[in-house]
């Protein structure tokens, strides 16, 4: 029996096609993946991400001595690869929780608030992450309070017009904030008082400057009781920017164009963040953390495999699991596709693949672009190895309002 987010009825009302994902019934599309994808790239789109796991970590007791970091910070430093001590209040960072062999338990967001840390886990991994965190907490006797904040439901607002919409609704100049800080929007203030009624006065919604699309955007940590109002408020006020509700179909094509990883595809228990290309989120000098030894070995001795971006000709779409070869006759298999699609923005097939990196160096290049071959049904299709991301938002472009 799949779980439903608090916005389930809204999706049905909007005519969404629902599919099971990570244990949840989620909208895959409302109108079409291509249209929703384009809305996010050129205007603004709204996603229900209430399936994501929101975890709170609080110090059970205040720090024993003034100079020792509170247990929450030490704990998070121990279980993640990035340097949590760099976070100021209201800042988030991307990070990875590794296991002892340097493989990935989950990739996460960690945010610091005045009274707690927030960890955001993938929907399919929420229970696994909760169990993992508790196991590590108990093993080292960290005195902490770890809880799954199921009363919070997340939404995501992404696109070049997202900042303008946030400024209009929350009355805060986010464009000027170069540190991309998150903030708590206390809803129901006079700025909102319009018809239909705004969100209940005093309701606090944490808004982070994060996203999974390669565009500017914001993610809301909304109390469930107000999530439906917030959703409809955003759609209503966003109409001026031609906002569209967007489903998981577009979420996948957007993140893939931005070459962002998806657990279960680019990450798994046997794949390290360095192999996935996220070595920058691994801070060896911050101190001890789970997986550090194996990751350091990888960094120093070379990676077993590495993630590369591929572009294919015509309409030859690579799909997860398709094999990749160094030669057109398929003698020398060097890896496989982890994710692939037809890129709506670029108008060409793109994919990500783990390849034995030493073989890649030897693969024949055409015009300085290394070439490999993807087996699509019975054909060996030539693919160019390209730098990622495939798409980068154009900072100079003007957001469209038509």
């Amino acid at each position, binding site marked *: 029996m799949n779980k439903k987010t608090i916005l389930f009825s809204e999706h049905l009302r909007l005519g969404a096609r629902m599919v099971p994902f990570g244990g949840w019934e989620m909208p895959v*599309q409302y109108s*079409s993946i*291509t249209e929703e994808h384009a809305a996010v790239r050129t205007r603004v789109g709204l996603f229900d991400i209430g399936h994501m796991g929101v975890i709170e970590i609080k110090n059970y007791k205040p720090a024993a001595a003034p100079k020792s970091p509170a247990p929450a910070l030490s704990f998070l430093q121990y279980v993640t690869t990035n340097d949590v001590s760099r976070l100021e209040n209201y800042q988030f960072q991307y990070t990875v929780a590794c296991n002892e062999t340097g493989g990935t338990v989950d990739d996460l967001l960690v945010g610091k608030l005045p009274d707690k840390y927030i960890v955001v886990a993938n929907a399919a991994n929420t229970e696994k992450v909760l169990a993992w965190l508790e196991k590590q907490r108990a093993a080292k006797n960290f005195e902490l309070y770890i809880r799954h904040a199921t009363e919070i439901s997340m939404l995501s607002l992404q696109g070049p017009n997202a900042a303008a919409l946030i400024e209009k609704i929350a009355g805060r100049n986010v464009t000027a904030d170069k540190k991309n800080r998150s903030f708590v929007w206390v809803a129901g203030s006079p700025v909102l008082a319009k018809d239909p009624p705004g969100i209940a006065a005093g309701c606090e919604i944490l808004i982070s400057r994060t996203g999974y699309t390669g565009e500017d955007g914001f993610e809301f940590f909304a109390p469930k009781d107000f999530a439906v109002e917030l959703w409809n408020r955003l759609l209503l006020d966003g109409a001026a920017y031609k906002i569209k509700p967007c489903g998981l*179909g577009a979420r996948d094509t957007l993140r893939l164009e931005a070459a962002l990883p998806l657990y279960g595809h680019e990450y798994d228990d046997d794949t390290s963040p360095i192999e996935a290309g996220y070595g920058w989120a691994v801070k060896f000098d911050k101190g001890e953390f789970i997986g550090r030894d194996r990751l350091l070995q990888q960094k120093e001795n070379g990676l077993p495999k590495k993630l590369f971006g591929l572009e294919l000709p015509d*309409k030859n*779409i690579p*799909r997860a699991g398709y094999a990749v070869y160094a030669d057109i006759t398929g003698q020398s298999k060097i890896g496989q596709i982890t994710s692939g*699609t*037809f890129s*709506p923005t670029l108008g060409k097939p793109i994919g990500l693949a783990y390849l034995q990196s030493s073989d890649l160096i030897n693969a024949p290049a055409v015009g300085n672009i290394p070439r490999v071959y993807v087996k699509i049904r019975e054909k060996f299709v030539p693919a160019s190895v390209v730098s990622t991301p495939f798409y980068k938002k154009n900072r100079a472009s003007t957001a469209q309002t038509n």
Partner: protein
Amino acid sequence: MIPENLRYSKEHEWVKVDGNIATIGITSFAQEQLGDIVFIELPEVETQVKAMQDFGVAESIKTVSTLYSPVSGKIVEINSELAESPGTVNASPYAEGWMIKVELSNPSEVNSLLDAKQYQELISTTSE
């Protein structure tokens, strides 16, 4: 909604018979399930097809779907428009979105296909 004059396969293809020639495409239900189609891979003219065997592929953004021939015979024509405009299958699955024309080698096969009413029942019970 579901054209009465056509026959249907369980794999969501439709067949229109004119004398000895069968025109084949995919149903509205199928194109809706696929979403925006970006590519249709069809075989060459003269290729022999057999009932229930695959003859091509329909690719959308999120999925690849095998196309199965409901009948046996020789392909005498393919819809070359679809190479340029695969979206025609979404827009007009029963008319402009036709895919192949087959010269039937065993016309009686058509009788074992579903009629409109049976196909309607099939898709009503198919959960998404």
